[in-house]
């Protein structure tokens, strides 16, 4: 009897119904129409006015719904990011999830000493190399705010260092129009030309408005530059519940989305159809320590809500976070918080998921944490792939064979197991499953120690695809130029 074919259901989590999604969206529109926002870039202000916005007090803008809806329509529903050799690397659409590191950590855990120390440029290189090697990390961010480079050019130095150490896509930070132009120049050289870069972008800019509802000149400069040059960009504000936004999550979402819609509208006016990655960062301001939390369940919940709103309303790929912690060491809290955000991020189908590897609420980066998170992402991927049900996996023949095969007949010896076990099971490398005695003999290590050893092995041994001397020289020239 031929078994009927089945399609494999992919586990998916939903946290909002349609009613809720639209209510939050309408609140966001109301904020833009009735409350308004501060637009400090004259060019952007003019564009908004031309699109129907009203201005009071020289820079306080109220934006009509139709202007926002135009932008929602014209922005692309899919953003393709390539690696630095022009190969398609990330299809940011639907529920496709990709994980990567984060930016601007002031401190890092030293790989040799375990000490928390100030970050330097070499750390940017190390994190980029690690991302380059890890199977489940799809893009690199700096993971450092290096103290050993001139601060006025810091983002140019950092971008160049990432380019030198990984071929994967890069999400980068810039300060304003001036340094983003230099970063763009470097990217054009890497891609062998501006046209090629625009067709197959390997970079995405991360910029932030200031919550609540403030859009500084330098931020808008970068937004407009990216729109004009078709560099993908995201503009999450820190609309953290209790901090830049109201303490209740629905309100924090509404405000963050309102701010994002301003960014989207200006962006599409400057470059209609240019790629815009949607979504605010909606975490919480901790009510005791006043840190913005990187381990809280709220952030996972709000981004899951954003994913549902994407599916119901926006259709635009979204920005998210995962794999970070408020813990000061790679301990059980770090593991728990990292796993919580990683699995929920994937179950909600968030698209570009950053900040993997952060400890201490984003203040300290850790190579061990990135290494651990890589395996947690793999474990999550296994789960969200679901259970394929077909002739082969139902294994009715193998069952018959082993059950009636007489004494000594076990599944372990059967052909079916040999053929399928590597796909059928999740095969951990760092999460330890050994028997007690062999674990003891091997040094009784904990996960932090194993991740440390693995990170060291990768950093010292990994050989990424090198860039040509010509490109490297050009990059150096651009970095050094004033």
């Amino acid at each position: 009897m031929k078994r009927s074919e089945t399609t494999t259901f992919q586990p998916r989590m939903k946290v909002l119904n349609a009613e809720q999604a639209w209510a939050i969206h309408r609140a966001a529109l109301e904020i833009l129409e009735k409350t308004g926002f501060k637009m400090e870039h004259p060019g952007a202000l003019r564009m908004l006015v031309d699109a129907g916005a009203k201005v009071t007090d020289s820079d306080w803008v109220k934006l009509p719904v139709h202007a926002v809806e135009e932008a929602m329509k014209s922005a692309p529903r899919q953003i393709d990011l390539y690696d630095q050799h022009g190969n398609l690397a990330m299809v940011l659409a639907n529920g496709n999830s990709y994980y990567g590191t984060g930016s601007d950590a002031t401190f890092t855990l030293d790989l040799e000493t375990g000490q928390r120390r100030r970050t330097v440029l070499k750390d940017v290189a190390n994190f980029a190399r690690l991302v380059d090697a890890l199977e489940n990390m799809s893009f690199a961010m700096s993971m450092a705010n290096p103290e050993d480079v001139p601060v006025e050019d810091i983002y140019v130095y950092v971008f160049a260092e990432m380019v030198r150490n990984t071929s994967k896509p890069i999400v980068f930070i810039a300060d304003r129009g001036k340094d983003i132009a230099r970063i763009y120049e470097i990217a054009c050289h890497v891609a062998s030309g501006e046209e090629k870069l625009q067709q197959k972008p390997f970079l995405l800019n991360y910029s932030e408005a200031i919550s609540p509802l403030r859009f500084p000149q330098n931020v808008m400069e970068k937004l407009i530059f990216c729109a004009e040059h078709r560099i993908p960009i995201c503009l999450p504000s820190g609309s953290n519940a209790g901090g830049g936004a109201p303490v209740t999550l629905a309100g924090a979402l509404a405000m963050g989305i309102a701010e994002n819609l301003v960014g989207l509208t200006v962006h599409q006016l400057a470059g209609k159809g240019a790629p815009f990655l949607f979504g605010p960062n909606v975490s919480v301001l901790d009510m005791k320590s006043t840190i913005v939390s990187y381990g809280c369940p709220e952030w996972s919940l709000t981004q899951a809500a954003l994913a549902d709103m994407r599916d119901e309303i926006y259709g635009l790929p979204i920005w998210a976070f995962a794999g970070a912690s408020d813990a000061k060491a790679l301990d059980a809290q770090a593991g728990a918080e990292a796993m919580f955000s990683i699995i929920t991020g994937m179950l909600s189908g968030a698209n570009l998921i950053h900040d993997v590897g952060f400890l201490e609420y984003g203040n300290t980066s850790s190579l061990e944490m990135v290494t651990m998170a890589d395996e947690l992402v793999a474990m999550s991927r296994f789960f969200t792939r679901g259970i394929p049900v077909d002739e082969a996996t139902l294994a009715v023949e193998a069952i018959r064979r082993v059950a009636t095969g007489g004494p000594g007949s076990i599944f372990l010896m059967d052909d079916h197991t040999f053929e399928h076990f590597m796909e059928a099971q999740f095969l951990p490398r760092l999460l330890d499953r050994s028997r007690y005695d062999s674990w003891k003999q091997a040094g009784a290590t904990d996960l932090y120690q194993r991740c440390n050893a693995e990170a060291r092995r990768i950093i010292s041994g990994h050989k990424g695809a090198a860039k040509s001397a010509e490109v490297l020289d050009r990059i150096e020239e651009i970095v050094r130029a004033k």
Partner: protein
Amino acid sequence: MSDFKALSEAISKGDINTAVSETRQALDAGTSAQDILDNGLIATMNEVGDRFSSGLIFVPQMLRSAKAMQECTKLLKPYFQEGDVVSKGKVLMGTVRGDLHDIGKNLVSMMMEGAGFTIVDLGVDVPPEHFVEKTKEVKPDIVGMSALLSTTMPAMADTVDALQAAGIRKKVKIMIGGAPVTEKYAQKIGADSYASDAGSAVTRAKELLGIS
């Protein structure tokens, strides 16, 4: 000394109306404004501050208690003469040139006000010249600077230098803070103190001025 139990409880709970009415009642009953301030308000806020530092209460509760105290202090003001010590110290606060972030600065200001300091807030994007001008005008005990971006931190060094050049560096204590700021950086630029959060800022401010 009078019994300020009801007033103290109202402030601890952040019950502004009750605190204000208790204060008014005490004044009407002839209690001295100084007595109410020292033993009713400041003593209570010190306890609230300690409970906050120990993690027993949350920031919104701390700020609400501070608001209650401020409303009561307003009632007491007319009873004090010019020159009477009502405040622990004067603090000039600002986010430095080129930086528009203010949540941290505002939180520090409010916590310090709650602890009994007087704050003059210059807002955001404050150039060194403006810090200098206002320092001459306001004569603060402490100048507090905030920055959230590593690219705006150099303005902190510029401001310290500007105060030095104006010959008034030694007249104030300089305290800095913000996400990318470190103790090491504070030492490097010649600031007097660094605080990592609003609660510590209050402690550091008291240390700088040698008060409790």
